[in-house]
Every structure is written in C-alpha cells, then in structure tokens.
C-alpha cells in the first residue's frame, strides 16, 4: 500500500461570481502521510479555494470544472454526500484563520471542543470532558478546567487558537488543513502557534496543508511547498530544494523580496513588474509548472 494520502490532479475551477473567471488552473499536488506541505501565493492565488475544496465547503459561486481530489484513493469530488460528511471534520479537519469568529460566542469552550467527540465518536459527557482536558494540556494550556468553563471572549487570541488546534486534532484526523492560522494573531504568539501545530502534527503523525503568505514560515515548518500564482502552480517540491535552488524567476524574486514578500515595508526588494508580465504570459500559454525531485 502506498503512503500517498492525498492526490489532487488537474484541478480547475471557475468563479460564477466573476463571469466564469478561472480560479484554479490545472492544479496538481500530492501529500504523503504525515507530510506538511506549504501552500504559498499572494492574495487571490487560490489557496483558500483549494483548502475549501478539500473540506467540501466551496461556496456555490465556485464551480470545479475538471480534475480529481483523491483522499486515500477515493475522489472527494464525486463522493456521495453521506460519505463525504463522514470524512469531513473526522479524517480531514480545519484549523481556521481567525479563532475569534471560529468559536461560537454564546457557548462555553467545553461544549464546542467536545461536539466532535460526542457527535462523531458517540462519547458521553464525562468521557468527552476527560478527553477535552487531555487535549487542552496537549496544546499547552495550563489551566484546562478553567478554560473549559470559559466563554470564548474570556480567552486571548492565542488561547483561542490553541483551543481550535485541540479541536482540529481531537478526532485524530489524517489531514489537517490550516488556512493562514496565525495571521490574526500577535507576532509573538504566531511563533508559538506555528511550533505547536508542527509539534502536534509530529506527535500524531498527521499530514498538514499549511496555507500561508510567508516563505519564512514555510522554511520553518513545511516539508514541501507548492507555490501558486493566479490559480496556477508555479513551482513545487521539497522545501529545502525549492528554497535553495529556485528555478522560476517568480520564486527567485519572492525569496529575494524577503520573508514577508506581501508586506513591502518588511521586504527587501519588491517583485519587479517584468516577473508578473512573464507570469501572465505563462498563464495565457499554459506553460508547465516546475517540479523539483
């Protein structure tokens, strides 16, 4: 049996909102069990669209036009809704971008953290409580009893994101999709959360799709990376190879631009215009992406 967990192949999607505008163009990427893959690209590159497609939560205004998304060999795109919902949240979990809006302000943490355990695993309240305590200490929350009783507004952003991570790992998923899980947090907290996700991933042997704008983050925690632009894969491969030996001018320019290429103030030099001109040319002509290894 192969250790391939996820295999996205030739995935294309259009936006019905913007008159059939392509959002994803022939995207292929794969993920081994326990692998962490960074999904990098600037705003509008299609990162979240891929993440949503994986979770089966694409908005109705987005339409997949071709391609397959095989998870453990079964195509998520053609799967019966019942089978799909058995996988979602259970085998494939989400760490959301903003822990502020991802927790219900009207329910205590315990209720929200144990929903999955009770609904998916059929646990009773007492077992779910014990498991929740265990999960919270796993994400280094010091006072788990107090946090379980708290409402979301009583916790800091970092604490809330720890709770979301605990919730994501609570059902022992095989794949966790993290869509920019640190952008809503303070810089000091960001590092801790990154380390925590990596730590949880290693401890549970979970594969992670890590969506980010930040090549520095990719360098730190991703085994492999897929770089997108305009819905098209530009370059992909093991992180070390791509960063050490970028082949595409866009990748080179991004690395030169510094860790946060999307923030001109933090970057060293912006991506020159001719690079974008070349990217647009390639997208029009349908040039192949560069794959390492």
């Amino acid at each position, binding site marked *: 049996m192969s250790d391939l967990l996820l295999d996205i192949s030739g995935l294309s999607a259009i936006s019905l909102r913007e008159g059939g505008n392509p959002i994803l163009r022939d995207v292929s990427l794969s993920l081994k069990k326990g692998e962490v893959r960074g999904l990098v690209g600037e705003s509008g590159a299609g990162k979240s669209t891929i993440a949503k497609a994986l979770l089966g939560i694409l908005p109705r205004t987005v339409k997949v036009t071709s391609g397959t998304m095989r998870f453990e060999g079964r195509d998520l795109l053609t799967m019966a809704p019942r089978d799909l*919902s058995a996988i979602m*949240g259970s085998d494939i*979990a989400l760490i959301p971008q903003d822990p502020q*809006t991802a927790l219900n302000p009207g329910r205590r943490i315990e209720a929200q953290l144990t*929903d*999955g355990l009770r609904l998916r695993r059929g646990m009773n309240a007492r077992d779910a409580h014990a498991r929740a305590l265990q999960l919270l200490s796993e994400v280094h929350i010091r006072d788990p009893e107090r946090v379980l009783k708290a409402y979301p507004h009583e916790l800091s952003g970092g604490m809330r994101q720890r709770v979301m991570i605990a919730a994501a790992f609570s059902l022992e998923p095989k794949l966790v999709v993290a869509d920019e899980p640190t952008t809503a947090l303070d810089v000091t907290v960001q590092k801790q959360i990154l380390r925590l996700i990596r730590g949880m991933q290693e401890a549970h042997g979970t594969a992670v799709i890590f969506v980010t704008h930040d090549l520095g983050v990719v360098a730190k925690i991703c085994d492999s990376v897929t770089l997108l632009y305009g819905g098209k894969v530009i370059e992909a491969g093991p992180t070390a190879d791509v960063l050490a030996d970028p082949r595409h001018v866009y990748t080179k320019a991004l690395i030169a631009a510094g860790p946060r290429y999307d923030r001109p103030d933090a970057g060293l030099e912006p991506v020159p215009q001719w690079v974008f001109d070349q990217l647009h040319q390639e997208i029009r002509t349908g040039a192949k992406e560069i794959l390492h290894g």
Partner: protein
Amino acid sequence: MTAYSFFHRVLMAAITLFGVAVIVFVLLRVVPGDPIAMMISPGASEADIAALRAQYGLDQSLPVQFWIWLTSVLSGDFGTSISLRRDVLELLAERLPATLELAAAALVFAVVLGIVIAVTATLLSRTKLSPLVDTLNGLFLAVPDFVWALALVLIFGVLLPVFPLSGRINPDSQEGFATQFYLLESLLTLRFRDLADISLHMIMPVLALGLPLASIITKVLKEALAEAMVQDYILLARLKGMSRLRLVLQEALRNAIGPTIALTGVQFTFLIGGTVIVERIFAYPGIGNMAIDAVINRDLPLIQGLVLVFGALFILVNLATDALVVAFNPRMEA
C-alpha cells in the same frame, strides 16, 4: 447586575414615573373639559357645584392639588373615581389582571409564532419558500393591531361566528373565581371548561395584538439568524457533523436571540399600549378599555391612576428586557 446598577435602575424608574405623573397631571388640567360638569344634574345650584369641587380637591391651586395627590398616592390612596364613584386602586386591581393576561398571552403567542416561522424559514433558506416568507411577512408588518381587530370582527364575528365577539368570560361562570386572573386560575385549578371559555374569548384580541409583534419578531430573528449562519463557527460545527436543525437551534439561535429580545421588549410596550383600542373593540374588561371611558368622562383620578399603572408596566418591561438581554449574552456578565 451590581447593587449599584440595580439601585441606579430603580432610581431612574422612580424619576421616570414621577415625570410621567407631573406631565399627565398638568396636561389633564390644561386641556378643556370639566369633570364636575359631567357629574352634576341639570338643576344643581352653584353651591352644590362648589361643594363637589371641594370634595375632589379641584378648588385648590394646581401645585397644591398635585402635592395632595402625590402624597396620598404614596400612602396608597389613589383617590375616588369621579365617574364610577369607586376607589381607584380597587378599580385598577380589578381590571389590571385582565389586561396582564391578555398582553402576556399575546406576547407568548407572538414569540412562539415568530420563532417558529423564523427558524423554519432559516432551515428552508435554500428553497423558494424563504422569499415567500419575506414577502408575506412584509405584508403582515404593514397591518397594525386595530386593523387586525376590525378584520377579525368581520371574519369571525360576522362571516364565521365561532368565537365570542366580546367580553372575557361567560358571565355565569364568573362567580366561581377567587382572583381576577381568570386564565391563570382556571389553569391552575384545572377547570378546563372555564379555561376553554376564557381562551375562546381571548383568541381574537390575542391575534390582533400578537400578529403585528409576531411579524416583527420573525423579521428581526430571521435576519439575525441569517447573519449568524454564515459565521465560521457554524461552518466548523457543520464539519463536526452537526445537523442543520441543530446548527440553527444550538449554534445560531442563541446568538441571534439577543438582539431579538431587545427589540421584542420595546415592541411589547407598544403592544401594551395597543390594548387600549383592542380591548375597546372586543369589549374586553381590562384597564385599556377602562382608560377610554375614563378619558371620555374626564375622570381625573382614574386617568392619573391608569397612567401610573401603564408607566409602571412600561418600566417593568424595560427592566425585564435588559435583564434577559444580559442573561442571553455571556459577554455582558459582571
């Protein structure tokens, strides 16, 4: 609520009531209309009239009259009704329960109907039914309580006479009650025949008062639910395997109910105001109906008593509303 804020609320309530009392007192004595002129028989002498004036304190100056009235109200004496020649407090105690039961029944009806429609429409939000609900509700929103009352009189009074047209209870069964809370008493003492009779009498006024409120609740709650349903936490709950019914009831409703309660509280005070005309139309023996007679007869002590009761009701409703809003919003604890 802290002790300080509680004290603050009570103080504000007292000041509000006092303000209401002053305004009504002055207004009633500025507008034309002489209560004594309504009582006297045609042949009464000047001396008789003067004696009557003195009896009701109307010969004093305005501030003195107010002072006398205020001090006696504070000691529990609301004076004597000029037109009914009975103690005002007694009259109020007799009629208030009828109005309280009517208003409460209308509120319960409106809240239940509003929640059921809003939740159903949210569950079916992807079908064609949702815009239909909006359109219908838009129509209902435009119809005020007294128009409903008249329409109901026409439908059930004239065309399809299944409900009693007026009153509160069959006069024969009225004797058996220890309190004026007929609905509550018949329910608690399990007298189902009386209960049915009272309910039948109440259906039309409750519909007239409750339908406008129900459509407001439907509109506000439906919008609040729609807003809640697109939040990330709903998405995550859906991923955790929650059914759509549970998503709406357990996740969305508790966040949508706060703003709905606040608005329902305000609208409920309007509903209480609406009892005046609706009770009149259905000859329902509450304080609203009595208020109209009191005004027609320029019955100053009774009007003043009624205004104080209405004022106190509004203040209580507002206090209860605030308490409920806090209770439903964990962020406002403390």
